[in-house]
């Protein structure tokens, strides 16, 4: 009996088809594999290492559902207080290092855009999500909860501008797309990441070089960028620097004190 439902502990033989559509006893969809000859007690939920809830030990759905509900609780608590208490637990650093590269990068982008409110919000959510056990019933309402979160934050009069922007940015795709019924809210941090990525992309486009030096004597030119530049590149140097001729209007500004 190698497969065991993590919710009701029912076991199923290897190759069993009845568990393919979920546990027939409790409807759970998370199973663990117990090798032949191993002691099933070793695989009981209590024995699992991290303080993860037994419901969905390694399920992103469960984790994100809890994160969503924690965010909701946090936001409603925040509303009551009307002010953020910026207590960052030291364990957050450790939590952050455990996160996947994708989540990490999205967080970095948030920091870069200076959204400190959102950052602390997410940190608390992540920390609580890992440390707290949520009701199974809450998992299913997670998707819709997250969908309404930005609206909640928008309603708050005391919210910072950055936070409101982040909220409204992620709320617009939400309003177009109905919440997923399986409670998956994995898009929640990704939406923030997408918004930040768009900002980043437009910043990069703005900074995109007019002339790329592949190697001395080999160049790639961005014609649109060259056309759009107000200043005129008059000489190239191999160290990647340009000599430019600035427009008359720029010089006028610099010269104006002399004229007056």
């Amino acid at each position, binding site marked *: 009996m190698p497969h065991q439902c993590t919710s009701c502990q029912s076991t199923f033989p290897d190759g069993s088809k009845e568990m393919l559509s979920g546990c027939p006893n409790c409807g759970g969809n998370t199973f663990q594999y117990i090798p032949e000859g191993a002691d099933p007690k070793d695989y009981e939920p209590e024995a699992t290492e991290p303080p993860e809830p037994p419901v969905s030990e390694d399920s992103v759905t469960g984790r994100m559902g809890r994160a969503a509900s924690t965010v909701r609780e946090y936001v409603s608590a925040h509303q009551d207080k009307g002010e953020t208490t910026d207590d960052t637990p030291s364990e957050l650093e450790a939590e952050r290092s455990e996160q996947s590269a994708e989540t990490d990068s999205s967080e970095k982008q948030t920091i870069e855009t200076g959204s400190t409110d959102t950052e602390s919000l997410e940190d608390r959510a992540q920390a609580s999500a890992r440390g707290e056990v949520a009701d199974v019933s809450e998992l299913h309402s997670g998707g819709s909860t997250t969908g309404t979160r930005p609206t909640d934050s928008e309603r708050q009069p005391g919210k910072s501008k950055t936070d409101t922007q982040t909220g409204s940015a992620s709320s617009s795709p939400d309003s177009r797309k109905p919440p997923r019924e399986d409670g998956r809210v994995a898009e929640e941090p990704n939406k923030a990441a997408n918004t930040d990525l768009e900002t980043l992309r437009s910043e990069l486009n703005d900074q995109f070089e*007019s*002339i790329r030096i592949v190697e*001395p*004597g*080999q*160049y*790639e*030119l*961005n*014609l*649109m960028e*060259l*056309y*759009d*530049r107000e200043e*005129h*590149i*008059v*000489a*190239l140097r*191999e160290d990647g620097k340009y000599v430019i001729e600035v427009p008359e209007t720029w010089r006028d500004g610099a010269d104006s004190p002399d004229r007056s």
Partner: protein
Amino acid sequence: MGLLGSLRNSISQVANTLFASDAEPKRIGIYGPPNAGKTTLANRIARDWTGDAIGPESRIPHETRRARRKENVEIERNGQTVTIDIVDTPGVTTKVDYTEFLEHDIEKDEAVRRSREATEGVAEAMHWLREDVDGVIYVLDSVEDPFTQVNTMLIGIIESRDLPVLIFANKIDLDEAQINRIENAFPQHETVPLSALEGDNMDEVYDKIAAYFG
């Protein structure tokens, strides 16, 4: 009210006529990819109407690496004179590679220098297009495929600026020339076939220049 209106119109018409005669000559940029024959055309026009040339012609691409201007070129058509400034620009491209010059027996150091200057030339040509050009003669080699990124982008930029533009299908003296291909590529613009080198069809060229840029 009607009398005042017609009086105002008359005054503005007179003013327009006066200013038009004193207006600066239009600056016509000769644009196109490298080796399309831009300098050959510029020299042909300049020699025909001023007796001087604009710059050296060459089979080596990017021979023109700085924009050159010939001012006050007076073209006479049907008893009227059209005065223009001709700006011969470096060939526009998205990649410049010094190895291209090595094929023409140029030493590596010189090839690298030419490559850098050619790149600066493209930057200059794009700058002229933005700032200093009132109309464009877009020169294409009739032997080459006109459906390129550079051609599409430049024509697009010219159109976005609402500049008058003539497409010149050059090198029609060559057997492989395909004028139709250019006409099909840019059907929204007038295409004039010519050979700047041989002086073929130059009468039509000047007629069109006078009509478009006069």
